[in-house]
């Protein structure tokens, strides 16, 4: 009987995912309403719950894909994977205002470059403080602080050790997770309530999942504006970190 149930669940992974996410949202919106009187948005709680589930999944299986490493929850991997995520992000653009995007276009582009360089410099500074002095390790950790994709891409390109590459991924993950959780809380202090700021925000933070999750929990209407710039960030980072930024780091630290 238990085996039959297990099979029914594993054979219908995506459907299980819909169920799990639906129930998670139900609980989250209930908690948001009853415990915080709606002050903390339901989707913010749901994202935090998702991260807790991911942590449990990672601890139980030792895998890299959170909850989706557990057999019956494999469908979460499909539902929250790159394909459907990108599909849904593009869908949010339906109804976005093109003239707003044009108006904030320059700010968006500037924030992209500044965002990559800023995160990189911060990462390099912290790595220095922790005793790394060689340009390769510094660059890799700086790149990982941009996003957890830029880190390994850069590290591999310039020949960093796997220990440093792992660190760079972890730094990027911390950034992404903190952005997801923290965005709704800082939103009102940094004026994150209009399309222009959302575009700047996407460019500065850069982590697509972080920005997408954070803005969704702040105000879903802002999602397309943040996402439209954030999706350029990783590409720009992969372009700049192993080249210009590496050369500059090398020039400074030998």
């Amino acid at each position, binding site marked *: 009987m238990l085996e039959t149930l297990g099979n029914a669940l594993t054979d219908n992974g995506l459907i299980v995912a819909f169920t799990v996410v639906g129930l998670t949202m139900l609980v989250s919106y209930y908690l948001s309403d009853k415990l915080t009187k709606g002050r903390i948005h339901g989707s913010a709680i749901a994202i935090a719950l998702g991260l807790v589930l991911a942590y449990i999944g990672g601890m139980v299986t030792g895998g890299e894909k959170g909850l989706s490493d557990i057999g019956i929850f494999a469908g979460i991997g499909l539902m929250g994977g790159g394909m459907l*995520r990108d599909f849904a992000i593009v869908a949010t653009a339906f109804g976005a205002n093109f003239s707003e995007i044009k108006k904030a276009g320059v700010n968006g582009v500037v924030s992209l470059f500044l965002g990559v360089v*800023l995160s990189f410099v*911060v990462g390099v500074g912290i790595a220095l403080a922790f005793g790394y002095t060689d340009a390769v390790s510094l660059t890799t950790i700086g790149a990982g602080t941009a996003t957890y994709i830029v880190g390994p891409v850069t590290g591999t390109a310039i020949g960093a050790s796997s220990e440093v590459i792992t660190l760079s991924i972890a730094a990027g993950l911390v950034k992404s997770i903190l952005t997801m959780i923290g965005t709704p809380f800082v939103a009102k202090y940094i004026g994150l309530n209009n399309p222009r700021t959302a575009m700047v925000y996407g460019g500065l933070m850069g982590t697509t999942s972080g920005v997408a999750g954070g803005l969704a929990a702040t105000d879903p209407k802002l999602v397309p504006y943040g996402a439209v710039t954030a999706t350029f960030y990783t590409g720009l980072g992969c372009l700049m970190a192993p080249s210009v930024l590496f050369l500059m780091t090398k020039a400074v630290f030998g």
Partner: protein
Amino acid sequence: MVIYGVALLSICLLTGVFLGDLLGNILGIDANVGGVGIAMLMLILLAEYLKKKDKLKAPTQEGLSFWSAMYIPIVIAMSAQQNVAAALDGGPLALTAGVAAVVISWAIVPLLSKGGNSNETLESEMTGGDQRVRNIR
């Protein structure tokens, strides 16, 4: 029909991802450069054009709105499959670097989103980095 909207969305995403990969190849990097962003711009422009021509019927729009509404659930599924354990195992360096990058970026947001013409005091307080901003504007 609803599927028209879904197909329109698919065409935009596929085109965007293809162009993003192509752009990555041209730049010589192993990454997609803004594929999703290109797809979003494409969808906005196409939807606007079709609406003007009165070719974007209500069912077609429903195909788009459904996926737009599925966005938050999908983001929650995405958060449930993050490598949270690895992020916490990264130790103090990874934690400090990640947190510092986020906090400093947050602090910069209001400065950048102000734009050139409003609030002069904030602008004049800024050094190097911002002058570039003003020149571009």
